[in-house]
């Protein structure tokens, strides 16, 4: 356990990218982000059984056309299964106050199970799996650079209302860039503290205060290291005359093709279908 906990960099999946060169990979990142947003909103609102099963099938189909093994999506679902089960039981038993409509199946003391509360449990589990699949396809088929460029150019119209689009994209780039660096710093600090006799993750789980206190000698230096790095970066950027808000040209320019528009149109139609079609269940 101990040896595993020190290797923080191994667990970081941010920026994991699987280049298979499929149709999905070649789509314009702006289109992908837009389509992703539309689909997530549609899935979050859709509350019918049939609708959610269709959405799940669609998410699986996306894995197929992007030539990404579906095991990548399943590995995101696996750690969540215990939570899904616990939440399902809680929703089933304690949710009667709000979802009391429909047929009553069990009504025993405070326990009230209705067809509405069962629907709630199944639909929220399905919704969860759909969104995990969808976000896996997006991040596995789009590199982080593409995502930040995509966000920057999508937000471009906001420049007219004085929203700092370029600066915003820069913030995201800095954030993603520094995650592995800080992971390494944190590993170093944990090893340093451990070599002086600190214990991590060895206390019993019910000793909450003890385990919380264990975190302080890592978190506080981490913030201090982060701030010191930030000051260095500020100095370096200002030494190179970086000026926020000045006009800049863009290195990567995206031009949407007809396939991109077709994909977007398809996703919009799919979202409309999910929300507007009167599914019987």
């Amino acid at each position, binding site marked *: 356990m101990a040896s595993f906990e020190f290797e923080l960099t191994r667990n970081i999946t941010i920026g994991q990218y699987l280049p298979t060169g499929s149709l999905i990979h070649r789509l314009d990142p702006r289109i992908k982000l837009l389509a992703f947003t539309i689909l997530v909103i549609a899935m979050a609102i859709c509350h019918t059984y049939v609708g959610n099963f269709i959405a799940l099938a669609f998410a699986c189909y996306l894995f197929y056309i992007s030539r990404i093994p579906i095991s990548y999506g399943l590995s995101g679902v696996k750690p969540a299964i215990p939570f899904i089960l616990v939440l399902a039981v809680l929703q089933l038993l304690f949710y009667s106050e709000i*979802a009391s409509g429909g047929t009553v199946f069990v009504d025993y003391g405070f326990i009230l199970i209705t067809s509405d509360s069962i629907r*709630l449990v199944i639909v929220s589990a399905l919704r969860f799996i759909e969104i995990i699949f969808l*976000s896996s396809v997006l991040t596995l088929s789009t590199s982080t650079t593409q995502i930040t460029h995509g966000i920057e150019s999508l937000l471009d119209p906001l420049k007219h209302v004085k929203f700092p689009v370029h*600066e915003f994209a820069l913030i995201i780039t800095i954030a*993603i860039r520094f995650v592995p660096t800080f992971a390494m710093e944190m590993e170093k600090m944990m090893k340093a503290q451990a070599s002086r006799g600190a214990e991590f993750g060895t206390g019993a789980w019910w000793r909450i205060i003890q385990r919380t206190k264990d975190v302080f000698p890592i978190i506080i230096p981490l913030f201090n290291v982060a701030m010191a790095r930030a000051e260095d970066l500020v100095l370096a950027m200002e030494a190179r005359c970086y000026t926020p808000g000045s006009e800049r040209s863009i290195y990567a320019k995206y031009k949407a093709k007809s396939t991109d528009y077709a994909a977007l149109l398809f996703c919009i139609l799919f979202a409309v279908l999910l929300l507007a079609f009167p599914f019987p269940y």
Partner: protein
Amino acid sequence: MERGLTTRKIVIAGVLGAVAILLGVTRLGFIPVPTAAGNATIMHIPAIIGGVMQGPFVGLVIGLIFGVSSFLDATIPLFKDPLVAILPRLFIGVTAYLSYVSLRRVNEYAAIGMAGFVGAFTNTLLVLTMAVIRGYIAPGVAVTIALTNGIPEAIVSVIITLAVVVAWKKLDHRGNRKSKISGEM
């Protein structure tokens, strides 16, 4: 403080955003409290610190990064809903900043501690409210979670915010490592 975005604000928002992501993916940002909502979290602290040090916009952006990363990384269905995972997090840094500014004239340290408390409280309150509205948990369960998770979160948040912000404010006197161009706090 200077108006508009300075280089320092951009960089600090980015760097603290990185810390927020890191605390999430390494699971170090969780305090193991055995409740329905899983663990208590300290991942909102970067947003509070950003809000206190560099103002509401920086706090808001870090809150956004925290929200999006918790949304993408969620293992609980509750946080796979953008309305629960992202929207409430935007306000953490903003309320922390407001409480810091309103108390700063009274006592600097009390103001920083208060910002830590208010920021954590904002997170607990808004996330649970959204969770109840969206129908993931019943109101009764939400109150229990507010007590079991909210209180430890608030205490830890006050301690860490105080320690980090005070240390950062002193950085200047010791090492003189701060750039002078984008202005002092």
